[in-house]
């Protein structure tokens, strides 16, 4: 039995009897981050990083959860566990597992670029690396986020000049705060959808200083809207909530916006390529830096990406999991917009 294995419940460490990001109910769950495909309800005990904890509690309600700082080792039945920054969202971690000199790393979701909010990604040397491949095709190549935010600011300014509201959609947890933290607040007021503001409040309460926002409610003065930037979840774009705004321009920030087909499908005015996952070059360099000889690809373009890794001489395999990466965002957004 290898140190980590894949069962019908999730990534399992038999020696310590704990799971990493399990998708069925278990006794002990180590959680990489708070997105719903990694952090599910119903486990008896949760362990995550200090900075990931508040959001997980906010989303899952009353659970038995403890947290550790990045880098600190927790030993369970002789197996050493530690959390290392994954750069995906605030508090997100790669989980390092060591037993008798054998080291595995389960990386959850990750990106290499420092986004100014999430603890920056740190490569962890290991023998076996469990990786995502949400954007594991050579067509996905991100520009530096400064370029992307220059484009977002320019779009906002142009809309403002035309008396329009700029409505930018991004996942409520992570993407929305990254946007908030990197746009130029001098352009105008930043307004938020309730789902986004809930997460903002959680993060502010844990001591993160975010740019100022105004939550949109029924009472919000509509004169505020023209020239402002509204940050909302993708689900809000198709919903009746949009009736709040007169003249407006819509945009989505997502890695999927790299492809013209996906941009057209969203039928928004602009698609900004902004992802919290590693691009093709990022995945390849992250894997190289671990020094791992064995790579297990869990979600995304798993079959293609693992074949590519084998071509590069690595012992790579794909495993089916319930992780969905950025697909979860898009799907969630659409099904909930249908409901409202």
């Amino acid at each position, binding site marked *: 039995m290898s140190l980590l294995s894949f069962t019908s419940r999730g990534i399992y460490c038999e020696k310590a009897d704990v799971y990493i990001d399990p998708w069925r109910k278990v006794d002990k769950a180590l959680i990489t981050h708070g997105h719903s495909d990694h952090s599910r309800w119903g486990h008896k005990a949760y362990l995550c990083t200090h900075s990931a904890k508040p959001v997980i509690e906010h989303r899952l309600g009353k659970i038995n959860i403890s947290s550790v700082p990045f880098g600190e080792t927790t030993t369970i039945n002789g197996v050493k566990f530690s959390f290392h920054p994954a750069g995906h969202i605030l508090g997100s971690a790669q989980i390092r597992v060591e037993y008798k000199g054998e080291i595995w790393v389960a990386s959850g979701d990750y990106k290499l670029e420092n986004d100014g909010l999430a603890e920056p990604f740190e490569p962890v040397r290991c023998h076996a690396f469990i990786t995502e491949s949400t954007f594991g095709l050579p*067509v996905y190549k991100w520009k530096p986020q400064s370029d992307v935010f220059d484009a977002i600011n320019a779009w906002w300014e142009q809309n403002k000049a035309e008396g329009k509201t700029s409505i930018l959609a991004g996942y409520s947890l992570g993407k929305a705060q990254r946007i908030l933290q990197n746009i130029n607040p001098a352009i105008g007021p930043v307004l938020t959808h309730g789902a986004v503001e809930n997460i903002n409040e959680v993060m502010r309460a844990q001591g993160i200083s975010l740019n100022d926002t105004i939550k949109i409610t029924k009472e919000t003065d509509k004169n505020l809207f023209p020239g402002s930037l509204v940050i909302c979840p993708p689900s809000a774009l198709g919903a009746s909530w949009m009736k709040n705004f007169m003249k407006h321009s819509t945009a989505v920030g997502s890695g999927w916006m790299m*492809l013209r087909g996906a941009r057209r499908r969203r039928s928004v*005015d602009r698609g900004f390529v902004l992802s919290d996952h590693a691009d093709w070059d990022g995945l390849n360099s992250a894997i190289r830096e671990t020094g791992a000889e064995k790579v297990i690809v869990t979600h995304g373009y798993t079959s293609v990406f693992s074949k590519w890794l084998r071509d590069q001489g690595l012992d790579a395999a794909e495993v089916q999991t319930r992780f969905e990466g950025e697909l979860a965002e898009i799907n969630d957004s659409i099904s909930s917009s249908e409901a409202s």
Partner: protein
Amino acid sequence: MKDFVKLFNTIDQTTKTNAKVEALALYFKNASDADRIWTIAILSHRRPRRTVTTTLLRTWAAEYGNLPLWLFEESYHVVGDLAETIALVLPKPLKQSNHPLSYWIEYIKALKDVEEEEKKVAILQAWNSLGHEARFIFNKLITGGWRIGISQKLMVRALSKFTGIEENLLAHRLMGNWDPSSTSFDELVLSENPLDDISKPYPFYLAYALEDEPVDLGQPEEWQAERKWDGIRGQIIIRKKEIFVWSRGEELITDKFPEFNSLVDALPEGTVLDGEILPFKDGKVLSFNVLQTRIGRKNISKKTLETAPVVLVAYDLLEFEGQDIRHESMAERRKKLESLLDSYRHESLLLSPVVKFSDWDVLKKEQKDSRAHNCEGLMLKRKDSPYKIGRKKGDWWKWKVEPLTIDAVMIYAMRGHGRRANLYTDYTFAVWNGDELVSFAKAYSGLKDTEFQEITRFVKQNTVERFGPVRSVKPELVFELAFEGINRSKRHKSGVALRFPRMKRWRKDKSASEANTLDDLLNLLNLYGQ
């Protein structure tokens, strides 16, 4: 290419029609004549002849992008657009040139007769001097297949905005067989006496589907009813001792139907007919399938002419004695059409008969009876209406029969293209033959984007086997397929071929075992097939 890229981006980045028209009108205003004419050509699907094969483009792109060919191909399956895939995998350009659109079109055309090595040098050089978006457009100019988000109608509107010339007039000027390399903007668009192009067809008038009962249309005596034939909509032009046959897709298809050649002698000078090209033998309309055996063939053999002869079932007269009579009423045009076909007879020319009715109930019975006539339903045309341009509501309606339906199990799924890239949208369906599932139809339309998302998730989690872009999936999902007709077919394992199958709805309430059987399908064949 900067201006064209900017235009393309503006059109691509907005969903608002007015903004698109505005951008295009502005582009026309600032562009050179050569760029104008090529832009019109591209937007009306007249791209330059392909001078480099897509196989070569793929090979060179993979090589230059430093990727194994298989990985390039996998990426292409996901992106769903070859030109875009190439633009995405290439390394950054060395420099960025700013030659105009027409320069790059001439550049591509010049590759026609050169050696492969020389082509490669030229293509790499082009890729190396164009930014990402310009590369995408350059690749599109070679590969074709634009879905640029601007219809011919909108282009005409923009052109009208820029020139001040009336839209209808422009629409007519832009039709027909003009060659962008040898036509000037002045000749094509601006000149009052448009090219002396005797082949030029009139824009087709298209009907909307009637959603409600016809009783809402008013008095029966104001309307003319005809069968809705299931063939190829066509326009036949007799001018200056020449014949031209145009399809609704604005394609010149004269060569495909030699049956019509002798109409030149049978019909008077200056005659333009609108009608349906139908397979017809021994006094009987044959199924559309028979016609399909002729479409796409380069050469029409003697055998084809014997087994699948065609006629034009004429239903309108647009030009009579050299005069454009589209402004006259349907009733007047019909009278002229009848008397014309009465005095000039030809074995490949029939009159689409009028279906007589005194009240809507009588007509409803006729409509229900459509399949027996090998028809899709009825056409309703207001007697006092002129012949309009394009799809307009109000005067012409198609009143189709309810489609046939069957519940089938999805067994294969394939990724879509264009705006459906990266989603599994093209499915193969099967019905039960005992314990076995027999595939009988493919369909890819009829569902909402949200349903495609949900099914994509299912496909990813329930894949049995992969074959390139296709996956076989666990046979669990059931769909109600709707289709217009059913016929015997030797090409399909099930022995049947459906006409225009699409997904009517996803039967989430049914399990795979509740889907229909091959016997059910064969029953439909016996009832409605030929």
